C-alpha cells in the first residue's frame, strides 16, 4: 500500500526475518531440541496472537471499541474445560464447544449493546466481561475462586500454531473480500456505510461473534495448556493486555497485532533480570513506544511475503546512492 520505498524495504526485511525465524523455530521444535521454557513461551505467544488478532477484528477493523475480550476467553476456557473433564471430549471438539459458546454469548449479549458507540460501548463491554467473571466466581460447576483443576493438558505448541494460523488466515482472507471492506466501512463512517447498503448491525454482530469465537478457542487452548483455570485468569486487566497488543501493533493491521504480541510476550520474560523493577520498566517502555509511534508499530500497514521480493528490486537502486 505504502508508496515510500524506504518503508517497503524495511517491511521486506522484517518479513524476511519473520519467515526465517518461523521456519527455524519449527525446525528446532520438530527436532525436539526446543527447551520446555521456550516451548511454553511460544505456546502462550500463540494463544495471545489468537486473542490479539480476534480483538483486532472487532476493535481495529470494525472499529467497535470492546473491552470484554477476557470474558469471551473465559467462556471458551470454562466450557471447553468442563466438556473435557465431564464428558471426555477430545481436545478439538472441546475447543469448538468453547468457541461456539463464546460466540453465541457474543451474539446474545452483543446484540443489545451494539446500539452503543465508542467509549460507551467500551464501558458496556468491560461491564459484560466483569459480569461473566462474577458469574464464574459464583457458580458451583466452575468451582468459583478455588479454580477448576484437573483439565487434561493436551494443548501442544503445534496445535496453538495451527489455530493461530487459522485465525490469521480467516481474518486476512475476510479483510481482502467485500465482507472485510464492509467491516472497514463501519469503522470509517457508520452512517455512510448504511447509506451504501451495508447492513451494519449484521456486520457488527458478525465481527463480535467471530472475534468471540476465536477468543473462545484461545481460552480453550489456554485451559488445556495450564490444566487449571481460575477467575483470576480473566480479570479485566487481561482484556486490557490484549487491547494493548492490538493498539501497539496498529489498529487494523493483522501483522501489527502479531508483531506487538510477540514483543509484549517476550518483553516481561526478557526483563526478568530486573526482578521487582520489571513491571516498572515494562510500563515505561509501553508509554515510550506509544509516544514515539502513536499509530502503533505498523500503523495500518501489513507485511506480505511478496514484499521480500521488493528488497531485491527497489532496494538495490537506493543502495547505490
Amino acid at each position: 500500500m505504502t508508496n515510500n520505498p524506504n518503508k517497503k524495504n524495511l517491511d521486506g526485511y522484517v518479513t524476511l526475518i519473520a519467515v526465517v525465524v518461523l521456519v527455524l523455530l519449527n525446525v528446532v521444535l520438530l527436532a525436539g531440541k526446543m527447551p520446555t521454557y521456550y516451548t511454553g513461551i511460544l505456546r502462550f505467544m500463540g494463544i495471545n496472537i489468537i486473542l490479539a488478532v480476534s480483538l483486532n477484528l472487532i476493535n481495529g477493523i470494525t472499529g467497535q471499541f470492546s473491552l470484554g475480550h477476557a470474558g469471551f476467553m473465559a467462556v471458551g476456557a470454562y466450557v471447553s474445560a468442563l466438556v473435557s473433564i465431564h464428558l471426555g471430549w477430545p481436545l478439538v471438539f472441546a475447543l469448538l464447544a468453547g468457541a461456539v459458546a463464546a460466540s453465541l454469548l457474543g451474539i446474545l449479549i452483543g446484540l443489545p449493546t451494539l446500539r452503543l458507540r465508542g467509549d460507551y460501548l467500551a464501558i458496556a463491554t468491560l461491564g459484560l466481561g466483569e459480569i461473566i467473571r462474577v458469574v464464574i466466581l459464583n457458580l458451583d460447576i466452575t468451582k468459583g475462586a478455588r479454580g477448576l483443576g484437573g483439565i487434561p493438558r493436551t494443548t501442544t505448541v503445534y496445535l496453538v500454531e495451527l489455530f493461530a494460523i487459522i485465525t490469521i488466515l480467516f481474518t486476512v482472507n475476510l479483510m481482502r473480500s467485500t465482507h472485510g471492506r464492509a467491516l472497514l466501512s463501519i469503522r470509517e463512517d457508520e452512517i455512510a456505510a448504511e447509506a451504501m447498503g451495508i447492513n451494519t448491525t449484521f456486520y457488527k454482530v458478525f465481527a463480535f461473534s467471530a472475534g468471540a469465537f476465536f477468543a473462545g478457542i484461545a481460552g480453550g487452548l489456554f485451559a488445556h495448556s495450564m490444566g487449571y483455570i481460575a477467575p483470576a485468569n480473566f480479570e479485566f486487566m487481561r482484556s486490557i493486555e490484549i487491547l494493548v497488543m492490538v493498539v501497539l501493533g496498529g489498529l487494523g493491521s493483522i501483522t501489527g497485532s502479531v508483531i506487538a504480541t510477540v514483543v509484549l510476550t517476550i518483553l516481561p520474560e526478557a526483563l526478568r533480570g530486573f526482578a521487582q523493577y520489571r513491571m516498572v520498566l515494562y510500563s515505561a517502555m509501553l508509554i515510550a513506544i506509544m509516544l514515539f509511534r502513536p499509530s502503533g508499530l505498523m500503523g495500518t500497514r501489513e507485511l506480505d511475503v511478496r514484499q521480500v521480493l521488493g528488497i531485491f528490486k527497489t532496494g538495490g537502486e537506493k543502495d547505490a546512492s
Partner: protein
Amino acid sequence: MPANLLEARSLTMNFGGLTAVVNLSFQILKGELVGLIGPNGAGKTTVFNMLTGVYAPSEGSVYLENELVSSLKPHTITQKGIARTFQNIRLFNDLSVLDNVRIAFHSRSSFPIFDAVFLTPRFFKKEKAIYDNAMELLGIFGLADKKDEKAKNLSYGQMRRLEIARALATNPKLLLLDEPAAGMNPQETEELTELITEIREKFDLTILLIEHDMSLVMKLCERIMVLDYGILIANGTPDEVRANRRVIEAYLGGDV
C-alpha cells in the same frame, strides 16, 4: 405519462420541540431531475435523511415505486434503489478510492462469507467482477489513476466526484445529491453539470438534488421544489419558481 417513482406523503419531522419539516408531500416521476432549494436551515437535508431512512419521520410515509420504505433501515432503502451523497462529504477517509467504490458494490455483488474465508473460485470470480465494475465507474469519473490513493488525500472536487461514483455503485433508481457543487469553482461546477447530465442518461437515473448554486439548479433541473422553515412553498418549473412571490420573500431579496 411516466410512472411515479417516489412519493412522500405528509412527512413531518420533530426534533424535541423543534419541527424541522411540516406536512411535506411531493412526488417524483421516473426520469425527472428535480431540485430542492431553500434558505439555510429550511430542512432540506432533513428531507434527505427521511427519504434514506437515517431519520424515521415523526409522521407521514415514503413510497418508492408504490412500496412503503419509510419504516425500513437505511441499508435496505439503499438496496431498494435510493442512493445519496452527503452535504459534508462522508467518504471512508482512510480507505483507498477503489475501496470506497468497492464497498458500495457490496449489496449487489455479495457472496457468502464462507467463500471469502476459504478462497473458493466464486470468491475470485465475484471479487474480479467487483474490481472491474469499480474501475469502470472510476474511469467515468476520471478517478481511475487515483485508485490507490487514500480518499482523504483527494482534492475537494475529486472527493465530491468520488461520492457520486460511490453512490452510483449501489445501482440506484433515485439519486439524491446533497449540494454536489458546494465549494467548487465555476469551472468545476461546469464540469459537474455536464457529468450529472451524462450519468443521468448513461445510468437511466432519476435525480433529486439540493443545491445553493442557482445557476446550476436553473440550468439542470426540470422542476424545482422550494422549502422554507420546513414548509413546501413552491413546486414548479424553474421559470415558475423564479417568479413566485413567496420564494422571493423567503430569500429576502436574494440572488434569485
